[in-house]
């Protein structure tokens, strides 16, 4: 008989008489997990459905998710929207924002700031995505190997990871970028090299947590092992955490890249790079504030959008108890 999801629940509900569940209190504190929110003895709804629905997305969160879309689209199509060529002067120098034809004004040699910011956003976001994906992918592989295989491999990999984590990341990134020469590429490599251990730690911890869960033991007892155990019973519980962390990290990587670029560790002028633009514009801060401030604001907006949306996503997942 065809049944809707709701119908199934009703059918199921009728099938077994007294059917609510007393969970025995966990034997020990599970650690950092979210604490039970209220002393209400009625945490589950009448039919147990409360467990499935987490907190709904608030207006702010919806806006943030929308804003991510806008920023990403802007960063992708931005260079085509740019009214001028970003690397050559296109008008009078030091034009303030809202000048005719130059929405964000022009810089010290008359290049259009809006055009440069749009182009810079693309390279900044692109670089951040590359760094995050590379770090997340490599870190995940290491973390899965360590957490899933365990034993000596785990200890060895985690020793190395801990070494990387114990030294200040930005320093290593700076030295790497300095050693490899002044290009965006070396900044990317520098940051990725110091960023992966975070994922390795995170993923290993998550994998070990999930592997210890009863449903994985039960699957092993059922005869499931290896790749299938990992993909079918472990990974679905780990991947949201990694995805959320990566989305939040994009914001952080954008800022770190900007800091390196500000220090001159990105591509040299006139390539439009937001951090570099801010650094070069610093000397005009008191006379023409928009030259350094506009690119800095662009960085802030991008980082904000990813930080905020990532956090909203994390809250959502935590509410669902994944």
């Amino acid at each position, binding site marked *: 008989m065809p*049944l809707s999801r709701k*119908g*199934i*629940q009703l*059918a*199921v*509900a009728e*099938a*077994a*008489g*007294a*059917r*609510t*569940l*007393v*969970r*025995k*209190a*966990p*034997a*020990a*504190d599970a650690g950092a997990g979210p604490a039970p929110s*209220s*002393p*209400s*003895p*009625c945490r589950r*709804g*009448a039919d*147990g459905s*409360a*467990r*499935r*629905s987490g907190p709904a997305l608030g207006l702010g969160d919806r806006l943030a998710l929308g804003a991510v879309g806008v920023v990403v689209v802007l960063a992708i199509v931005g260079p085509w929207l740019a009214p001028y060529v970003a690397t050559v002067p296109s008008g009078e120098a030091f034009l303030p924002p809202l000048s005719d034809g130059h929405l964000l004004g022009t810089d010290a040699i008359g290049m259009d700031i809006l055009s440069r910011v749009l182009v810079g956003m693309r390279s900044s976001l692109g670089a951040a995505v590359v760094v995050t994906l590379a770090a997340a992918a490599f870190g995940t592989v290491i973390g899965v190997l360590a957490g899933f295989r365990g034993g000596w491999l785990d200890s060895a990999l985690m020793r190395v990871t801990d070494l990387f984590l114990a030294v200040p990341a930005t320093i290593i990134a700076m030295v790497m970028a300095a050693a490899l020469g002044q290009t965006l590429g070396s900044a990317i490599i520098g940051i990725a090299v110091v960023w992966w251990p975070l994922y390795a730690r995170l993923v290993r911890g998550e994998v070990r947590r999930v592997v210890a*869960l*009863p*449903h*994985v*033991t*039960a*699957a*092993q*007892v*059922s*005869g*499931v092992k290896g790749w299938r155990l990992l993909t*079918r*019973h472990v990974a*679905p519980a780990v991947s949201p955490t990694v995805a959320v962390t990566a989305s939040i990290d994009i914001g952080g990587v954008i800022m770190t890249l900007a800091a390196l670029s500000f220090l001159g560790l990105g591509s040299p002028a006139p390539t439009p790079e937001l951090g570099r633009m801010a650094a070069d514009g610093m000397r005009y801060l008191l006379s023409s504030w928009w030259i350094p401030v506009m690119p800095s604001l662009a960085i802030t907006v991008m980082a904000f959008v990813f930080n905020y949306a990532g956090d909203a996503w994390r809250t959502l997942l935590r509410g669902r108890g994944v």
Partner: protein
Amino acid sequence: MTTASPVLTIDDLTVQYRARGRTVTAVSDVTLTLAAGECLGLVGESGSGKSTIGAVVQGILPADGSVTATGAVAIDGRPLVPVTDPAWREIRGRAVTTVFQDPMRSLDPTMRIGRMLDRYTGSADASAEALERVQIRDPRLVLRKYPHQLSGGMRQRIMIALALSRKPSILVADEPTTALDVSVQAEVLTVLKEAASDAGCGVIFVTHDLGVAHHMCDRLAVLQRGRVVEQGPVDEVIGAPTHEYTRRLMASRLTLDLDRSRPVGPVDDAVVAAMADAGAESTVPADLTRRWDAGELTWDAFVGETAALGAATGTPPAHLVSHVTRTSLSLNGISKSYRGHGRGKRGLHQVLHDVSLEVGYREAVALVGESGSGKSTTLKIAAGIEKPDAGTVSRQGVAGEGTQVVFQDAGASLTPWLTVEQILLERIEHTRTGAVLSKEARLALAAKTIGLVGLPPEVLAARPTQLSGGQQQRVAIARAVAVPPSVLLCDEPTSALDVSVACSVLNLISLLRHSLGISVLFVTHDLAAARLIADRVAVMTAGRIVETVPGERLAHDLTTEYGRRLVDASLA
């Protein structure tokens, strides 16, 4: 029993929770009184509203509009509006204090016991006295400890001392011993009863356990879906229950004198019928058994024959395999240590010492012990989840299909994002005998197994989180027996369930055992459940099996001191 002026009166109390636009009535029209020095038991299954009444009396429900209440409450003759009255702040912690269920987390882990207690007793001497009143032998030492350095029973005594240090008129005890071992439970209950009666305060005792309520309380109120269905002196309610629900609760109690030949609790006819139906099919053709016994068949040939037979009749061949084996499981001289804190030998903590155990063909053996006795580790080793440091395990049956496990927390043991059907199919595919079946045969087997455990076919499409606790445990059992193992290992499968649900799960295991012809190793802390399921009961403590007796006459036959203690605790 004094019947002085009541310390608590509750009139027509109704409590509703509001969440996401829906209103759930947790308590309706409840009227209760509690006299000074009296112990009133609130008994019911989960969702009966017993804890909500406790929370109202404590004044700890949120006054932010998410909970609404009508009716009247008076404490020490002082009338209070339930939930919203600002005066609850003065009542809380003074006129009313509480002992909670979870002693592991209810004490601040960063604070020494002394610092916690001194705040209410005023001095270290007074704190030491308070601890002596709850029969803690070395109070000065305990005062210097942190909570995590103490056992659950100790922590719960400290909770009691803490609660009584405020000299309340009412003590709310919310399932105070549910998380404790049976023998510890009895001690803590005695401590609670004596200390409360010395202090002369009334006790609201919230519990799901009629036996515990009987031991503790002067009067009982039985709750079902937020209503008091029966109320009266404890002996009358227990001795001659008038309401049908109370009778059902009584019938679901596991005691040491139950008739083992019949299902326990309120019997579910549909389940029995399904079981009988399933049992009829799983007999091995006589000639196959004969050829196996005569040694005419190799193992592979035997599996092949049964697989062919299974494909022809739609019967899973492994149903048949277990019939030809003789000893299903044997553990020989198993030892196991875990690495705790500290290095080298000092850090090793031995949990099993030379454990030997045999489970015969179609035999059910129960392993009884308290937490830390090593019973769960034994089960894990039997299941191959853990490797023993020394000793051997041998399992009969098709390779990889010898043992299956039913875990305590069924909900957690089912992968939450898979449907029930996927879960069952996965198990079937990963067995040697199930793997030879066609896709359709596997689907049919999954559907058939779900019927076997008494669930409707609609459950196949559901995910575990959409099911109740009892249903989840049935699904877990279905996974274990979809391709029947030679031994079904059960790890406290009913201890997280309400009593009536627990009974039906016990019945199910019993019936499946007989109809599928499988052996059972049943690990539990509950002597009565062990006796009900098992032909033989092995008692385990401190990593050793101290004695093994026939299930039937368990209460008489147990002779070791530890065994007697368990029996006494169960009888109390």
